[in-house]
């Protein structure tokens, strides 16, 4: 092999292999060698693994063949023959019925294709009119056939890998979900078990303060477990879309004031500032929307104690926008995209009990209203939850 040929091959190899898509790679392969090997049509036939019939998976017409375009039937019988015999077949010149002149003189060349060492197809070149295929031409054509087989194998592997990845991702999600649930349920259970058996120990006496401390923990963790189970049922219903929404005209401003009043009964210390524009009623499920607002209020009480909360409502372009702003610690930027995910809790957030389901449930409810919810936050300055609901929501 001389240096010049090698360097041409090197460039072609690089050019072809760089193409991610197999069809583009094949195009590049055939175009780049057309100077050394002239053909008019090329077609690749692959055996269908189920029907065992031959399918054309790739066909190109170049140069003179363009006039005889897309008629790939010409190669079919030769492809079958190459596959059956498992060898290269050279047929020239063959008279193509119905065509006259040069187009009537078809020189055909077929190669069996081994994909993953299994004979599974054939590649057919056709050239209308002369000259006849020389030995060099046949060598180049054979190289292209091998290469094409390798590119198709690469496609098969790419597809298999993509499928495998997606199956794996599904499994991992499922695994994570199961282990998260079991961890979430076992945590409060572990405290209840641990602290109650501590109190039951006969070999030691706890002082009164410690006894009360342990009993309080047991009480709180039992409540946490109850809440967790309720939230899990709720989120499972939302997930499976079996939760029924009852839509009717709702005045959002009145709804928020109601919830605020109820919250103030339990948390009189929470200062709530309202800034409402007159708003059109929307169609929504009042009970579910109240649940969302309740959740945002109780988050403010839990995560931004003594900061107060400011609620602002505006209407604009067929939407109403409601913002709940607190002046608490805020949420680190890295965690912002995840706070609406199921079971997500900001790492290190241990001072406050929570299930990691509240905001997930909020988001599902708002989505069922064709609305949107997100959070903006500057660390150390507070967090703002924004809800947008369409005014003509759910006809």
């Amino acid at each position, binding site marked *: 092999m001389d240096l010049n040929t090698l360097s041409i091959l090197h460039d072609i190899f690089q050019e072809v292999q760089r193409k991610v898509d197999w069809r583009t790679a094949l195009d590049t392969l055939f175009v780049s060698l057309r100077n050394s090997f002239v053909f008019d049509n090329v077609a690749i036939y692959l055996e269908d693994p189920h029907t065992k019939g031959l399918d054309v998976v790739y066909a190109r017409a170049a140069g003179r063949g363009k006039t005889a375009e897309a008629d790939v039937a010409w190669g079919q019988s030769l492809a079958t023959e190459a596959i059956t015999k498992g060898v290269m077949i050279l047929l020239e010149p063959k008279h193509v019925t119905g065509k006259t002149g040069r187009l009537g003189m078809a020189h055909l060349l077929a190669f069996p294709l081994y994909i993953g060492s299994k004979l599974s197809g054939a590649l057919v070149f056709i050239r209308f009119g002369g000259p006849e295929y020389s030995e060099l031409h046949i060598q180049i054509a054979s190289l292209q056939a091998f290469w094409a087989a390798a590119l198709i194998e690469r496609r098969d592997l790419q597809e298999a890998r993509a499928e495998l990845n997606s199956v794996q991702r599904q499994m991992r999600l499922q695994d994570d979900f199961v*282990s998260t649930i*079991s*961890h979430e349920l*076992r*945590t409060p*259970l*572990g*405290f*209840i*078990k*641990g*602290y109650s*058996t*501590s109190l*039951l*120990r006969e*070999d*030691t006496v706890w002082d009164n303060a*410690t006894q009360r401390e342990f009993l309080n*923990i047991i009480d709180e*963790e039992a409540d946490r477990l109850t809440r967790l189970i309720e939230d899990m049922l709720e989120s499972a219903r939302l997930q499976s879309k079996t939760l029924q929404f009852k839509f009717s005209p709702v005045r959002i401003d009145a709804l928020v004031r109601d919830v605020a009043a109820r919250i103030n009964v339990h948390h009189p210390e929470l200062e709530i500032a309202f800034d409402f524009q007159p708003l059109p009623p929307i169609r929504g499920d009042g009970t579910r929307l109240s649940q969302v607002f309740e959740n945002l209020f109780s988050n403010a009480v839990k995560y931004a104690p003594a900061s107060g909360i400011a609620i602002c409502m505006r209407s604009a372009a067929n939407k109403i926008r409601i913002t709940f702003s607190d002046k608490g610690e805020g949420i680190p930027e890295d965690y912002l995209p995840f706070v609406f995910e199921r079971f997500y809790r900001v*790492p*290190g957030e*241990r001072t406050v009990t929570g299930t990691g389901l509240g905001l997930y449930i909020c988001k599902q409810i708002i989505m069922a209203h064709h609305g949107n919810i997100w959070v903006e936050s500057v660390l150390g300055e507070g967090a703002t939850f924004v809800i947008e609901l369409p005014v003509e929501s759910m006809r």
Partner: protein
Amino acid sequence: MPKRILIVDDEPRYLRLLEANLRTEGYEVATAQDGVQALDVFSAQPIDLVLLDVMMPRLDGFGVCQRLREFSNVPIVILTARGEEQDRVRGLDLGADDYLVKPFSATELLARVRAVLRRAHTPTEVTGQARFFVHGDLKIDFARAEVWRGEEPVSLSATEYRLLLQFTHHVGKILTSEDLLTSVWGAEYKNDKEILWVSIARLRQKLESDAHAPHHIVTRSGLGYLMPPVEA
């Protein structure tokens, strides 16, 4: 001397539960809330037993267990909220002495702690908390998996570090290519000497002041490699 127990858990309520119960039995208690902190607390004082939660931020319980075993044989009891067999097996494979599945009762916890301490029953020198390893100008911090040559930090790949540990754990002993290949790469690599040659060469490049006249990893022709007991 009361035994000192290190409790590692990211849930303050577990720390409180364990600490309260252990103190009634006369143990001293040290606490850590994540894996990295655990290694620091461990290195700062003599510890007789480690109670180790699995799911933790930064470095999880399995990671802590693995690091600890690189330089200490302190008894370790894994606390896991995940009862699956593979988790328990993984903990034991990494060198844990026992495990306790959450939820557990206070009396069971104390019984396990007593049993493990009784079995271990080793004088503290043997639990030898040699967190640092020094060989000439080579220094290793096992707890942080960090390596220095003199004052210069050296960056090793995970494989190179595992290879180096083979030598630090068997100072003065000749290790054959097969030993090294099997313990670092796995049994199926035991004849793949070229990998070892390349890796030893890379390790020397990074650790030795003159890779052609090595002091830390020395070749014994026809036998294998060794880290000489005192710097040659």
